[in-house]
């Protein structure tokens, strides 16, 4: 049987890699934004950042090494998405799925640590701002990590 938590984690990771925002209730202008963190009118996403709600900048295309680092981080979340789904299918081999889930846990932890350190240094002056700076993207990455842990546990039980 397919591992549901793994598939859900994969879909969530792919959403983070490609989608910026989803409207929840347009009359009230309620939008679910997938930004990782926001600081001084700059919203940071996996694919780039938006300045003052208008100017869009992506470091995925540009000068090396900035583009290389951004591409690596984007590929990490993309890989977590694809491999979570592939490891959760019925036909996946046990050993391969085990390796993939471990890699996913490692990569999503790495993403959380990298952005965690960035956010920590941004709010170093005023730690109370910590939860204002963090966006849904960061929380969803945390959920992806937890779901992958669940998926690994249920795979081991089988």
């Amino acid at each position, binding site marked *: 049987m397919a591992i549901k938590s793994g598939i859900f984690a994969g879909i969530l990771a792919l959403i983070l890699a*490609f989608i*910026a925002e989803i409207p929840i209730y347009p009359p009230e202008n309620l939008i679910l934004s997938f930004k990782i963190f926001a600081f001084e009118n700059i919203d940071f996403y996996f694919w*780039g950042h938006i300045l003052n709600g208008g100017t869009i900048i992506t470091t995925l295309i540009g000068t090396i090494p900035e583009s290389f680092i951004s591409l690596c981080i984007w590929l990490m979340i993309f890989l977590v998405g694809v491999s979570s789904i592939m490891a959760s299918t019925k036909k996946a081999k046990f050993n391969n799925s085990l390796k993939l889930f471990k890699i996913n846990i490692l990569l999503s932890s790495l993403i959380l640590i990298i952005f965690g350190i960035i956010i920590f240094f941004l709010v170093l002056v005023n730690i109370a701002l910590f939860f204002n700076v963090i966006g849904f993207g960061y929380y969803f990455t945390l959920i992806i990590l937890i779901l992958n842990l669940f998926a690994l546990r249920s795979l081991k039980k089988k």
Partner: protein
Amino acid sequence: MNKYGLISLLLTCVLLLLQFIPLGFYFQFEAPLVNSYIRIPIQLFTYQDKELFIWGMVTNGIFQNWFDLNILTGIIFLVLLPLTGIVTIFGFWKESQTCKKLMNVNFVLLLVILLYSIIGIPIYSEEILGVQFNYFDIFSHLNYGFFILLINLILALIAYIKHPIQ
């Protein structure tokens, strides 16, 4: 199933069907309903205002088919690349000797396309771009599409070597 073959097929589809890779999707209640913040260009080469894609050339927003510009380029890009895609569809799925041969065909066709893009385009550059290129001039006009094609070629080689046979 050959996973490298599947990725190669996806890259072929990206090169053949898209003008750019959209990232940062957002939804709105006016046309277009789905839009994106970032558009990663996938043209093979860019020369001044001319963008050379696999499926044609765009000059200041005006599209021109390869068959209108240069028939040989049209045959190489618009016939061989779809053929590569079809061959990969049949090749990546089954784990047999015949499918391994199909993955070899995929690699050879991609190699022909890549070699033509760096040798053939400079030869016919006056006809296509209006300027005669020297052989190595083309390398200063490479764009992301060329690198996607190169990655596709490498993946096709790995797919051929690692094709599982039962």
